[in-house]
């Protein structure tokens, strides 16, 4: 299933940026936008694919068919990334 979780870590080899998924749970994450100057995530959350039976606390579970609709919404405007970031942030 697809879930939305926080991105945690400090960006080092010992504590890399990663989805907040418990150790022992396999995951595959679509790449999240990063600041090309320092590699920091431009968003606070990431969509991650995990096994359906994984015991995970997530911000939300995303229906796969809705995720497949994302490409139809057009490319992210990297020149206006501040606006994009704000639109994705969760309180």
């Amino acid at each position, binding site marked *: 299933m697809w879930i939305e979780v926080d991105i945690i*870590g400090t*960006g*080092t*080899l*010992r504590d*890399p*940026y*990663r*989805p907040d*998924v418990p*150790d*022992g*749970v*396999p*995951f*595959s*994450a*679509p*790449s*999240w936008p*990063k*600041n*090309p*100057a*320092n*590699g*920091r*995530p431009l968003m606070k959350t990431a969509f991650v694919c995990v096994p359906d039976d994984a015991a995970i606390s997530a911000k939300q579970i995303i229906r796969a068919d809705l995720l497949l609709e994302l490409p139809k919404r057009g490319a992210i405007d990297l020149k206006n990334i501040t606006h994009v970031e704000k639109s994705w942030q969760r309180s």
Partner: protein
Amino acid sequence: MATLITDTFDRSNNADLGASWDGYSGSNPFAINSNAARPSAAAADNIETYNATTPPDDQWAEITIGTWAANANYRNIHAACRFAAPNTISGYTGAAETPNPAGKVFIGEFVAGSFSVLASSPQTIVSGDVIRLEVIGSNLTLFQNGLSRATASDGTRTSGRVGIVSYPNSAITDVDIASFRAGDFSNFIPKVINNLRNQGICS
């Protein structure tokens, strides 16, 4: 699929891997120790890339783990693809680590020195494991001993060098690389077709 680079590190102990390998400012080099590539610093990044040959954009790199200490010290070891030339620390890696709290393999990406994990799978890691990263277009696949363990998609890095990376948290004696190989996917399709022909599936 062709092997373009092979280094078994079978040479005299030395603080440098040799002229075909480059270190990166801000990180530490590997050293030759007992016919293996060993990180030179603990609790720090150790990074080198191969400069004598750069495979085509669709490329693979693999390491055979030599020493993998049977203790609780954290360490990771990586095969790197599409890595920028010194001193820009940007590229993809396929890695093994333990413990955290248990072993795992994962696909990662350096961007200007910051490291992110793109996919991960819990696995037991032992000495002799072969960790391999294949990058074809924007598809990244990590293999452990020939088995696909993790996949990711990222189109940020389109070309670059192959190399090795490690972070031994406690002691440089916890991990080393017995051998390194890298290459491309030339002749891959003809080999697949030949296999199908040999099996009588196509003519």
